[in-house]
């Protein structure tokens, strides 16, 4: 297990408050966690517990009001580079074709940015290979709004991964999809992760999704969010839909659910 590997992301007693004075609201309190390189973690908790806040802190999109966030041992002061993000909404640009949408990170992130014009054909081939690996081969020329919700979300994952980021941030990326599509994308996600071994942070409220995909699940309390439970998932990979019906899997889900119910009591 990745426990022995040095941690890539470290949060030490991180807290975050929005607003100031009387309207000050503590969203996250005393979060301490460390993510090893290549680890897949999931953060679950009741809605409004600051899960998304945690994600923004790790990527440096929000500065913490207390404690510190370190990536590669360096304190994070602004948006860190080499991060891929996917959200509940696919956030694709309707004026770009699917292919051009996925090329976007390569136009922005160094060193690809510098090489982009001269090596465009190579990058286009890379995107097409990536599209094929998520089951979207040949759809590059379509516009996002010509694709179904599931296909748009696959494209969004491609965009998050195309520049081979070290860290992938997933903020309920399957939340808006129907159950069948969602479960299918779990396996797509797992396949991509097993091939590339990026470090992934998945924020979700779907416990089965968390157990299916993650090495470690962090359970957060109600607002202000605190980490109340850390659960290692040692089920063998690749996990399949069959796995989700096995006793070990179901037991873990129950265990997590009980912990979250305590928050609602």
């Amino acid at each position, binding site marked *: 297990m990745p426990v022995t590997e040095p941690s890539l992301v470290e949060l030490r007693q991180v807290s975050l408050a929005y607003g100031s004075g009387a309207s000050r609201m503590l969203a996250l309190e005393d979060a301490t966690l460390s993510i090893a390189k290549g680890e897949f973690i999931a953060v679950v908790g009741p809605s409004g517990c600051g899960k998304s806040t945690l994600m923004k802190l790790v990527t440096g999109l929000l500065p913490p009001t207390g404690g510190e966030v370190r990536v590669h041992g360096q304190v994070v002061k602004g*948006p860190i580079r080499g991060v891929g993000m996917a959200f509940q909404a696919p*956030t694709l640009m*309707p*004026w770009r074709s699917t292919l051009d949408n996925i090329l976007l990170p390569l*136009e922005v992130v160094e060193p690809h940015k510098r090489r982009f014009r001269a090596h465009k054909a190579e990058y286009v081939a890379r995107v097409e290979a990536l599209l094929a690996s998520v089951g979207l081969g040949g759809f590059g020329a379509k516009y996002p709004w010509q694709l179904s919700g599931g296909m748009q979300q696959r494209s969004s994952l491609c965009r998050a991964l195309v*520049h081979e980021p070290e860290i992938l941030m997933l903020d309920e990326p399957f939340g808006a999809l129907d159950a069948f599509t969602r479960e299918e994308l779990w396996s797509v996600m797992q396949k991509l992760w097993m091939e590339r071994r990026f470090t992934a942070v998945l924020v979700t409220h779907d416990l089965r999704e968390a157990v299916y995909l993650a090495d470690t699940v962090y359970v957060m309390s109600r607002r202000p969010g605190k980490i109340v439970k850390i659960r290692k998932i040692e089920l063998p990979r690749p996990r399949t839909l069959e796995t989700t019906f096995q006793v070990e899997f179901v037991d873990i889900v129950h265990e997590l659910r009980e912990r979250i119910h305590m928050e609602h009591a």
Partner: protein
Amino acid sequence: MSETQKRLLLVAMPWLAMTGLLLLWEVACIVFDVPEILAPRPTRIIETMIQRWDILLRFCLETLWTTIIGFALAIGFGLLLGLAIGASPFVYSGLYPLLIAFNAIPKVAIVPILMIWVGVGALPAVITAFVISFFPIVVNVATGLATIEPEMRDVMRSLGASQWEILTKVGVPRAMPYLFASLKVAVTLAFIGSVLSETVGGNRGIGFLMLSAGARNDAPTTFAGLFSIAIMGIALYALCALVERRMTRWAFRAEIVG
């Protein structure tokens, strides 16, 4: 009614409505015996338009030019100002109240001032067309920029994109449909501006022609001028709508999918 008939009727409707309105006007003039000096019959107006087409055309072209130049200036200036206001909260909070105040001033009030500054001729008409039509462009472009989804911004920022890259790769394309939508409004406003200026004080353009015809109690020519303005207005509106469809096909998605 079959599908073809429905589609034909849809195309014919604007013409039918217009004919109906003119017919009503014609009948009302005859029934109530309206003197020509108050409101000439539409047939009389169209007759005048055909008889005096050369004069009308000459004055129309003058107005058309001033309108187009003023409108072009408004696009350039409106786009730049809109981008600045939409991209920077400081520019926004600084300039927005000023813009609102400026827009609230009746433009007819500034024409005499313009005359003092630049004299009569084409220039005051160009300037009036410009100042009256840039406001909707600025507001729309700024709105397009300001409503970028926060997630889109997060995606760009986490990729390490600069503010400039966010503006050019997300902001500008996203503001385009807003820009083109505003052009349709702005072009008709530009017409109002140039005709206004010609009517308040000028020696050229269709507004001037109408004013002098009115002074001679030549109601048919005045109304013929009115009709000409309406025709030019529709033509430029249609042109803007066409450009809009061409440039931002993605904003009219249903049509290409179908």
